[in-house]
């Protein structure tokens, strides 16, 4: 059977991703996670003296802590299978990527295993975050210096 013919057959038989349902699930779970974050923000603002500007830090740290527990107890994996981007896109997904890689590397010890492997999934997010921030600011700086834009 020729390659072209085979790939047509393969595409016919292979079930398609249920895109609509996946998006619905991602929407729902992503929305809920953000609401949890909102609740945590309110908690910190009410009881701890944080303002809307400064509450981001403890909120994110708390969300990552929760992600660590869910990851360690094997629950984030189940959430991820269900929600897809709904659990990968929030910052908890970042935490899950780092924590799961760290746990996996444990068998090679803390230095060679955990240390070297921890960012194998999340590293690209950090890299592109930093690099894009640099270039966006650079472009803005140039535009402001030239007088085309304002801060």
């Amino acid at each position, binding site marked *: 059977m020729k390659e072209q013919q085979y790939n047509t057959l393969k595409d016919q038989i292979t079930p398609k991703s249920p895109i609509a349902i*996946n998006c619905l699930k991602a929407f729902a779970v992503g929305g809920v996670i*953000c609401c949890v*974050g909102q609740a945590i923000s309110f908690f910190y603002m009410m009881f701890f003296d944080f303002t809307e500007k400064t509450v981001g830090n403890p909120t*994110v740290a708390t969300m990552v802590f929760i992600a*660590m527990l869910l990851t360690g107890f094997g629950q984030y994996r189940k959430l991820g299978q269900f929600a897809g981007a*709904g659990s990968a896109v929030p*910052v908890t997904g970042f935490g899950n990527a780092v924590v799961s890689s760290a746990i996996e590397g444990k068998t090679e010890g*803390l230095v060679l295993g955990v240390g070297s492997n921890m960012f194998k999934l999340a590293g*690209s997010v950090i890299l592109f975050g930093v690099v894009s921030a640099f270039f966006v600011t650079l472009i803005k*700086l140039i535009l402001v210096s030239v007088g085309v834009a304002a801060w």
Partner: protein
Amino acid sequence: MSTIGFTFLVAFVVGGLICVIGQLLMDVGKLTPGHTLSILVVVGAILDGLNLYEALINFAGAGATIPITSFGNSLTHGAMAEAEKHGWIGLLTGMFEVTSSGISAAILFGFIAALIFKPKGKVD
């Protein structure tokens, strides 16, 4: 009370929509999670460059600060704030001032998790 309810609703919808964009990138674009999240982070940075992300945070609260896009926003925001004050040097020093919580938390808790947990090959 109704404003708190409304805050949650907006957070839910905006956060959910950003996740849907991610889901489409993965399902339709056939991108890996790594590629998808990297793209979203860059989008967050660009939106802050255009002065749009802070407005989104004011509107949606956690719906904009919790998705990974906020990471790109924080980094860019810190860099731009410093660049505005100190020019070219500020560009370099401002980068990590505002985002340290996300990365530090992930590092610290990842380390602790590695001490406590063992990976289990469980299926649902």
